[in-house]
């Protein structure tokens, strides 16, 4: 079980790294040369992609070798517990990420203050463990007061432009 978890993590990293590295390499080799210097703008990205490919291969080799040898990777008991908690909280996590993306997308459309109030209302409502009327008062109160306080401090007091 422990080994499976580790292998799963490694597999995910390899897939992400290979996809990223391949995309990057394809984009790097088509960078046009320049007359400014000998190396040109493409040299650094191409060399880095090649080093990354070598490192991924080395990582695959080392990880497989270590797993085969039942290595010191086994001290991962706490990781299993973390993994279980992670699954329990997965719904809240996914919701929070979606809310973050939607919030950022809506800022240019409905402006900062309304977007922030709505974001906090939904985010706090989703995460708050409280129930009933108290929850409503708490969530609405904090969402509105925190948004206005942030707006006032940055936009009015410090004259820092908000999105």
């Amino acid at each position: 079980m422990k080994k499976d978890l580790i292998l799963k993590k490694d597999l995910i990293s390899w897939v992400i790294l290979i996809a990223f590295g391949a995309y990057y390499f394809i984009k790097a080799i088509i960078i046009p040369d320049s007359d400014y210097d000998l190396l040109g703008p493409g040299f650094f990205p191409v060399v880095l992609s090649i080093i990354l490919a070598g490192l991924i291969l080395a990582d695959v080799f080392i990880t497989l070798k270590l797993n085969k040898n039942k290595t010191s990777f086994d001290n991962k008991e706490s990781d299993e517990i973390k993994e279980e908690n992670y699954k329990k909280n997965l719904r809240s996590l996914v919701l929070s990420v979606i809310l973050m993306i939607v919030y950022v997308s809506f800022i240019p459309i409905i402006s900062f203050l309304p977007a922030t109030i709505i974001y906090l209302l939904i985010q706090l409502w989703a995460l708050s463990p409280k129930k009933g009327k108290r929850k409503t008062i708490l969530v609405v109160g904090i969402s509105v007061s925190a948004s206005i306080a942030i707006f006032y401090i940055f936009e009015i007091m410090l004259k820092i432009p908000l999105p």
Partner: protein
Amino acid sequence: MDVFLTALSTIFQFKTLIWMFGGVAFGILLGALPGLTATTALILGLPLTYSMASELAFPFLISIYVGGISGGLISAILLKIPGTPSSITTTFDGHPMLQNGEGARALGFAFISSFMGTVLSWLCLVIVAPKLANIALSFGPQEYFMVIVVALSAVISLSGKKPIKGFIAAIIGLMLSCVGRDPVAATMRIVDATSIFGGGFAIVPALVGLFGISEILNNMITNNYFSTQKIKVHDMFSIIRELPKHTVNILRSALIGIFIGLIPAVGGNVGNLLAYDQAKRNSKYPEKFGTGIPDGIIASETSNNAVIGGAMVPLLTLGIPGDGCTAIIFGAFLIHGLQPGPLVFINNPTLMYVIYLALLISSFLMLIVGMGGINVFIRSLNTPNYILFPVVFILCVIGSFSANNNMNDVWTLLLFGAIGYASNKLEFPLAPLILGLILGPIAELNLRRALMISDGSFMTFVTRPISFVLLVIAIVAIVLSIRTVIKEVYKFK
């Protein structure tokens, strides 16, 4: 002398002192909250400095840094949860002291040790930094490139049990730093000019994303409630008479902290473990460690604060940030139109003195604010995560947007948040990635300049003595990393 007096009059302005006072309090508050670190405190404080003069912005940020590193001791002692990773060993003896009815003494020792650590590392900064900056002024592109190679190889070799993951993270950081316009010919690379990331990745939103968003995601969905107790402030000061007998421990721990701070990407979390271990080994009563004795707290808190002065040395003299906190301060330099490095000592000496003085004054303020306001900080520990972290996210959005008034930077924040979260989950260290991202453009520019000077000959890195020495250091660091990997692989055969 005139420069020093100007700096002195700048820092002792009422406005500056008030901002520093607020910065220390804010840093302690966030450092005390489990899940929030000094880096987060700096991330949240950074946007407030956008409209400030640099002579006010840096004292404010440094005061947050000192407060943030110190604040972790409060929850470490009271809750047995280190507020920041650099206070891990403070829990070992701090919490048992609390259970033995000596909570106020434990906090007193911790605050005074933090103060001593900061002041001793300040001494190091003031003595070493100008000398190192003088040496760095004679560096050509060859030496600069090699310094960066050394910094990256040190980070890689110190990436725990799997240096290869550190290596990969550093390369990813370097690769991401190439996105956008090339620094020499301004040619577009990897993305199109019209794409959302066509301007490349701005450093501040990328840093905020890497550190802030993954902390938010990790903590937002967990519930917290702690029961705490009130502390008598007077009892904390009663320990001052006992300090002289801990002189050796304080000095040793401060030296360890400073040394660890000087090395990129190691930071306070390693410093406090090393210092605690050394204090135990050199103690006449090692068996008492962990049962609630001041020696453990002193070692831990002196060393983690001593890291501050140490980490500021490579940042100010070479423009190399050693950890998350100094990376954010690096970002602040860029926002204020300055390139951290030896030239700041020449072009803006007043600012350098202001930074020196700010570190010293912050350590005094930390002592006053931390000990005086202890009961306020204790009450704040019960702010629920589900309220705190969404608000922190909004502040991260503001921080990312306001640096350049650009909504694309907010998307950079989210992208790097995802990268940071994935790195944590897949066990890739963040420090090499950040260092790669920050140092990538500087490394590439200096490599290309060096080769322009040498007509394309790579021998230029070997024929110049400093460059050659740095190359040897980098090779040794990489060979040691490879040796670690080989030993790990063949250990079980």
